[in-house]
């Protein structure tokens, strides 16, 4: 059973600049600390509070949309759910195989062939070589790239690369899927086929969390939504209600 539970989760980012990252400054700082303490405290690493007291429970079948303007903490929340950022405080428990799909072509190598990239992408998704080989034919068929798969993908058009990335990324069904702005799929002819596959794929995933700026996308995929601002959840509820609230907030 897949489930996600967050309890009072907070995340803050240290913002380092060249000065705070250098050892020289740290040493000088500690050496001169006595005289210019006032200065050193203000020189302290500035901290951005990216998430504050997030409490959230998701279970089997939940489709959650994250809504909010840039910098509201949507991506950070996704990364916390994916286990990439460990929160500074609070409790988090995520059960089930989680796949963060922020960039479907993460890890693809321009100089490697299409087949090599299928393997590479599959490894990134947590598959073993053997598992990928078992799916290879199905993936290759779906891309309709034929003999191109033997060529390095730098010879592909952007749309062809997208097809490849899309085909591999939707070949593993995780328990929990984390999406940032949905999944793109290239040209129009392919679009129809891709949409079918995507629908079949997302149907099988037990929990999906999607962060998006597109109202339509959120409405079509998610039953529930949360509205975030300054790293906090300001409103949670059914998608339409939350979108309505967001529209009010933006002032139209």
């Amino acid at each position, binding site marked *: 059973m897949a489930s996600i539970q967050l309890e009072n989760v907070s995340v803050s980012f240290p913002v380092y600049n060249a000065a705070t*990252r250098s*050892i020289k400054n740290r040493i000088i700082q500690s050496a001169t600390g006595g005289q210019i303490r006032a200065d050193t405290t203000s020189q302290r690493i500035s901290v951005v509070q990216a998430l504050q007291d997030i409490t959230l429970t998701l279970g089997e079948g939940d489709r959650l949309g994250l809504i909010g303007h840039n910098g509201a903490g949507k991506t950070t929340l996704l990364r916390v759910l994916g286990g990439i*950022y460990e929160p*500074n*405080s609070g409790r988090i428990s995520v059960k089930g195989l989680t796949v963060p799909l922020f960039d479907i072509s993460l890890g693809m190598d321009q*100089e490697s062939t299409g087949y090599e990239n299928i393997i590479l992408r599959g490894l990134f998704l947590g598959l073993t070589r053997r598992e990928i080989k078992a799916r290879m034919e199905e993936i290759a068929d779906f891309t309709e790239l034929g003999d191109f798969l033997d060529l390095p993908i730098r010879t592909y058009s952007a749309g062809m690369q997208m097809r490849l990335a899309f085909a591999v990324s939707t070949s593993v069904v995780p328990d929990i899927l984390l999406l940032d702005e949905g999944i793109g799929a290239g040209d129009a002819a392919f679009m129809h086929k891709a949409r079918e596959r995507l629908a079949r794929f997302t149907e099988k995933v037990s929990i999906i969390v999607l962060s998006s700026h597109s109202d339509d996308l959120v409405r079509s995929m998610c039953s529930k939504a949360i509205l975030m601002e300054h790293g906090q959840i300001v409103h949670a509820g059914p998608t339409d209600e939350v979108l309505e609230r967001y529209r009010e907030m933006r002032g139209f």
Partner: protein
Amino acid sequence: MSSETQVGESPLLSQFRYGLRSEQIRGALRDVAEGWERRELWMTLGLQDVRQRYRRSKLGPFWITISMAVMVLALGLLYGQIFRQDIHEYLPFLAAGFVIWGLLASMINEGCLAFIQSDGMIRQLNAPVSIYAFRVLWSNLIAFAHNIWVFFAVALWFGVDFNWNLLWVPLALFVILLNGLWISLLFGLLSARFRDVPLIVGSIVQVLFFITPVIWRPEMLPGRALLLDLNPFYHLVEIMRAPLLGQPAQLTHWLSVLSILLVGWAVTFFFYSAYRWRIAYWV
């Protein structure tokens, strides 16, 4: 964690206390163990790192072998003259030392960049971060596998007596790699936070090359100075170079290397469990 932070305490210190709870220690162990389990991924990435450097060149990664061969020959002929050494013994000695040094130096230098260079992946992939240290190790092992042939070619040419001591070589390599792993984890972590670390380490490694008996023989230093025995790199090089040249390595070298291994891992483990979770924030 913020609730436990005391006023006026450096955030690094409070993170350190936080990181030493048993939960974090288990997390660090799990991270390394799970990193090992994802070996198909980091082996592929490591291989890709090597291949990328030599893509579309005719000889590909064999340029590693060739440039090592040129280096060894040039240095060997020159320094053999300067030090008035018998070329039959000096060249194999230099080739072995140089190849081992190459492995050590690049493991350390690239180990510093283990996390910095993979920043994009770290922020997008929910894999244990230790895979990036393993990746560095693997690509260095591949380069080493190309370089070692230079030694064997030189050794065959000059008729080095290969014997059963050669069996020590894989063991020595294994121990060197275990050392490489803690070095990548520790220095990779420190470098992610303090970006001067790779630069400092780089220049220290460069100096160490001249202090360590790679191009000169330990016997050339009168009275076996402290400089030699206190240099960890001397022992690391020697446990592998001696068996390559047909002699068993002295026990003191092995003992030194094993203590470096233990102390290194202990220190690394401390830091790694304390700050591992911060790496994603730092890169």
